[in-house]
């Protein structure tokens, strides 16, 4: 006797069933049927269980996905904007500082020039070798030097305050960069969560990945020079390497 569901009823079971029915024991007959069908039920339950788990995981993943979606559509573009802000602010600060410094250079040069002009007659005065016309000339030079120094030192003070104030970018950019670091950490956690949900291990690749390099091995500033042996640590290293090459 073949049953399409894969359930096999034995002759003993069939005879027993007939007996139950003939003797009017309906309940026992039903129980027997259920017993015979039991293997189907446990497979079915197992299958339902598996589907339920998959559905549960899928729903969980869906939650992860919606956060990832937020990250991709909102947080990451926002982070790009933040980092562009850092570039703008640091560039502004560099230019403000250089504006001030470039204004100070000629002031210092002027004062230095006037001191050099005064110096020969001053030395003569110090050695008691100054005559009267020279003394008059020296007085005029010193008068100019005093006036220049007085006026320009006030200006230099202002310019140096500008240099000081230009450094306020560090606080702002520091805060912005810290936020972006938090975001990167969250993206990392989400991605690891997803890998875990899909049963993929995020570990295993014990070897640290090499940084990406472009044409001619370009990589930009090395931030972990101490942990690497393929890079130079400073200018002395460069000079040593070049001299070992016969430079």
């Amino acid at each position, binding site marked *: 006797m073949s049953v399409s569901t894969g359930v096999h009823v034995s002759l003993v079971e069939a005879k027993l069933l007939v007996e139950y029915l003939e003797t009017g024991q309906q309940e026992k007959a039903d129980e027997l049927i259920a017993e015979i069908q039991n293997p189907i039920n446990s497979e079915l339950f197992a299958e339902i269980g598996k589907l339920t788990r998959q559905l549960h995981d899928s729903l969980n993943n869906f939650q992860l996905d919606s956060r990832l979606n937020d990250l991709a559509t909102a947080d990451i573009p926002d982070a790009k904007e933040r980092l562009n802000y850092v570039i703008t602010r640091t560039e502004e600060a*560099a230019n403000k500082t*250089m504006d001030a410094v470039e204004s100070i250079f000629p002031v210092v040069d002027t004062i230095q020039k006037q001191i050099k002009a005064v110096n020969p007659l001053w030395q003569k005065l110090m050695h008691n070798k100054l005559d009267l016309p020279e003394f008059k000339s020296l007085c005029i030079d010193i008068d100019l030097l005093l006036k220049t120094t007085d006026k320009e030192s006030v200006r230099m003070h202002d310019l140096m305050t500008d240099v000081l104030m230009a450094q306020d970018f560090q606080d702002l950019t520091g805060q912005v960069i810290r936020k972006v670091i938090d975001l990167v950490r969250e993206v990392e956690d989400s991605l690891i969560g997803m890998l875990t949900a899909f049963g993929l291990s995020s570990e295993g690749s014990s070897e640290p990945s090499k940084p990406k390099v472009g044409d001619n*091995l*370009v990589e*930009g500033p*090395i931030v972990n020079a101490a942990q690497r042996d393929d890079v130079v640590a400073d200018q002395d290293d460069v000079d040593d390497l070049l001299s070992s090459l016969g430079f």
Partner: protein
Amino acid sequence: MFSPEGALDKNMKVLVVDDFSTMRRIVKNLLRDLGFTNISEADDGSTALPMLKEGSFDFVVTDWNMPGMQGIDLLKAIRADANLSHIPVLLITAEAKKEQIVMAAQAGVNGYIVKPFTAATLNAKLDKIFERLG
């Protein structure tokens, strides 16, 4: 490039190549402080090369990592051009892999400065470059 007395000619034409205007400004200021007055700028190799071919530049200071044409490729192009090959080239770059420094040396660089750098380093390298050429 040198005056008859053997002193460094501060009127020599210098080309400063860097994609960041702030770094160009720093290098220009340092060079000016050392007495160089004839300084031009370019923001990458592909802008610099036609300028070099047109004008009679005496010295090139270049970054390595730039969009468009990189400094190392500019150096190679200068060395490959019979009219330009004599121009000394100083690299000022954040690129710090030993392999890259060897690459630059083989390409015929005259000096290699890693960023961040100091005014004193620039001064020393310039002295060395022109001392050798003289």
